[in-house]
């Protein structure tokens, strides 16, 4: 009698449990709810095709920034297996630096005569500032905690986040700073019959270039290979002659640089920044990283852009179909609900690997 009992566990894997039934029922319900809402709002003809397209483009441009910030979350998670909550603040510091530089440049002749060069200078400065801040935070707050349980750097990162926020508040004041206008970026541009705002075109272009650059860096260079090795297994990587601490610093530096690019682009897209600007984009980018599969670089890029599209299109598409009043207010709710829904279908994110094999 005791012997058959040992045979039960392997069979249980394939058996349909009540939990499985519930999850499937829930998945079907989600599809029906979203499908019906979308059907109603599309067939109502409230928005024209051009307006739907605009919503998607708005989503892609915001999402591209989430992607850039999400890269920092996901890369740090890859090597250190903890969430660096100060990364949103690294992004905000980049945006604030971009404001300070842009504001100084706006008084010079260069801003009016050569806007392209000005934007490049602004973005490079914000990249530099964010990189320095990310590396400094790693040196001061995280390196002394190397080898400690993962919860400790996690809590430390929340502390680092507040420190950076109020440091910036102390340095530049609590008021919202408006970026100077870049006149050539106002208005629209016609890309093969695809009319989009110029600022968004620039944001999407720069973000895509930065992401391709990062991808090539991680996949093709020796440093990138070291990063991948450290994320695979730090101990073995160290045995193979890789300087783990140094590689981790580089990971923070590269992640910070990407957040810096996003900070510079933020100034072009939403021309204002204050000391608290990093919080919500930071949380969104973290969501994007999880959505794409935390630890996966391409996943973070995809996750960010999908999240941007979800939150831009979602309220008008799904919520409007159910006549929910003031649905635009709920876009953050939509973004975070999207995360939950994606995780219901793919528990490890869009491109995530199975978390079961994760080492502690």
């Amino acid at each position: 009698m005791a012997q058959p009992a040992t045979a039960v566990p392997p069979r249980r894997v394939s058996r349909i449990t009540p939990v499985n039934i519930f999850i499937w029922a829930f998945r079907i319900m989600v599809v029906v709810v979203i499908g019906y809402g979308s059907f109603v709002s599309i067939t109502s003809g409230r928005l024209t095709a051009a307006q739907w397209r605009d919503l998607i483009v708005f989503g892609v441009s915001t999402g591209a920034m989430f992607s850039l910030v999400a890269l920092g979350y996901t890369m740090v998670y890859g090597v250190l297996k903890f969430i660096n909550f100060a990364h949103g603040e690294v992004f905000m510091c980049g945006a604030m630096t971009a404001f300070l530089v842009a504001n100084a440049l706006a008084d010079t002749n260069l801003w009016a005569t050569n806007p392209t060069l000005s934007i490049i200078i602004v973005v490079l400065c914000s990249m530099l500032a964010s990189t320095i801040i990310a590396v400094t935070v790693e040196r001061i707050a995280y390196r002394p905690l190397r080898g400690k349980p993962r919860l400790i750097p996690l809590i430390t990162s929340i502390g680092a986040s507040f420190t950076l926020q109020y440091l910036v508040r102390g340095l530049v004041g609590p008021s919202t700073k408006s970026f100077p206008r870049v006149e050539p970026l106002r208005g629209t541009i016609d890309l093969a019959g695809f009319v989009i705002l110029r600022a968004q075109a620039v944001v999407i272009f720069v973000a895509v270039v930065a992401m391709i650059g990062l991808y090539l860096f991680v996949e093709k260079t020796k440093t990138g290979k070291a990063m991948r090795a450290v994320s695979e297994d730090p101990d073995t990587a160290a045995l193979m002659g890789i300087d783990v601490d140094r590689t981790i610093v580089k990971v923070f530096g590269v992640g910070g640089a990407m957040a810096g690019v996003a900070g510079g682009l933020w100034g072009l897209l939403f021309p204002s920044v204050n000391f608290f600007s990093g919080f919500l984009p930071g949380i969104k980018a973290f969501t994007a990283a999880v959505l794409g599969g935390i630890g996966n670089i391409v996943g973070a890029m995809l996750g960010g852009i999908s999240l941007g599209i979800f939150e831009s299109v979602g309220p008008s598409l799904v919520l409007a179909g159910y006549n929910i009043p003031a649905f635009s207010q709920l876009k953050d709710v939509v973004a975070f609900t999207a995360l939950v829904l994606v995780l219901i279908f793919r528990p490890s994110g869009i491109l995530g690997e199975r978390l079961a094999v994760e080492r502690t």
Partner: protein
Amino acid sequence: MSRRFMRVFALFAVLSLILAACGNGADPTTTTAAAPAETTAPDDTPDDTPDEAPDDTTAPDEPMTEGPLGAVVVGPGEPIKIATLQAISGDVASLGEDQNRATEIAIADKGDIQGFEIELSYREDDLCNSEGGQTGSTRIVADPDVIGVIGTSCSGAGVPASRVVTGAGRVLISGSNTSPVLTSFFDGNPGPEYHEGYYRTAHNDAIQGAAAARFVFEELGLSSVATINDGDPYTQGLTTAFGASFEELGGSVVLATAVTPEQTDMRPVLTEVAAAGAELIFFPIFQPAGDFIPEQAPDISGLEDVVLMGADGLLSDTYVVLPQTKGMYFSGPSTPETPEYADFVAKYVDAYGEEPIQSFHAHAYDATNMLLAAIEEVAVMDGDNLVIDLQGVRDALNAINWSGLTGSLVCDDFGDCADPTIFIVQNTDDTPTIADVRANVQVSYTAAELGF
């Protein structure tokens, strides 16, 4: 193990509920004259307390004419304490700062009450949200000697602050709360958040909404509008009042929607506005969200010529200077044109080196004066002490007929004391100052003209 934990947890939860209930119940009693002996007021120096203690312990035994809310006893050499709870940080800081300055001027003008100095003991920050209102007001009423509070700046903060301050027996007089929920919708019933002991010198947004709606319909000749609020009671109350009045006039509100105060990307919501075919967007919200609507609206196809209109929350020195706000209309309380107001502005400029930076300084000045007048009326000498009965302060405010900078102030049954005139101004300059914009009046309506 876990069951044991659950039991301990349940016990803890029940105990904390009981404690919380006790705390609430105990609140009113701490405002009686005996309170200073029990609770140690943070500002009391140690040598003050023994002076007070004998009076306090004997107070209940004596046949003193003390109201149901208790009284504040001010000992010799001590100041009469009042407090402010205004938005003094962040993007709405000018709203609170403007009013704090007015309160300071009012206190300086008053000098003293029966030889007792008046002290602005606390300047709490209402953060322009309910958390700030709750925290700030709780901190203020922890001092049992505070008689009244001037504030809050924002209706969102006013909701909890009104409950906390009036619940502790004190009065809250706001110079800039305008949401109808805090007083009434003029239908003879109290608003859902009205508490006895709450007063305001600012207009009720039922009036401002009607004024804005009439301007849009009659002066601009537009018939389809969209409204955007940010979920705050002020913005919700105003957009609702505006929408109701606008539809009453015969126009249609094609979209009544909302954003969040932290939102930066307004393009999706503006796309909805364009799809609805609105000719005007009325968005009585705050900075920073208010910055993004005029910034992003011209980019949306269909909104190139949309008319933008904000309200008093955006009519500030930090907002009108933004280049994108050129051409915008604002509704708000009109600037008084009396010589008394000119004197006040002269004092303001003298003390702070600039013209008033927001719309509600005169209201805060009147609010402070009303409070001080009420205190003066009820304060009686008892030996060397000045006794101020808290119910008496409320009665005095209920009966007040104060001729202030903003008009003659008579409080109705639900704390609305203003006799408002609402103006509509437009920002037309390339490099405007708040004074320029406020002077560019398009039209103004008195409450009587609007049927209130």
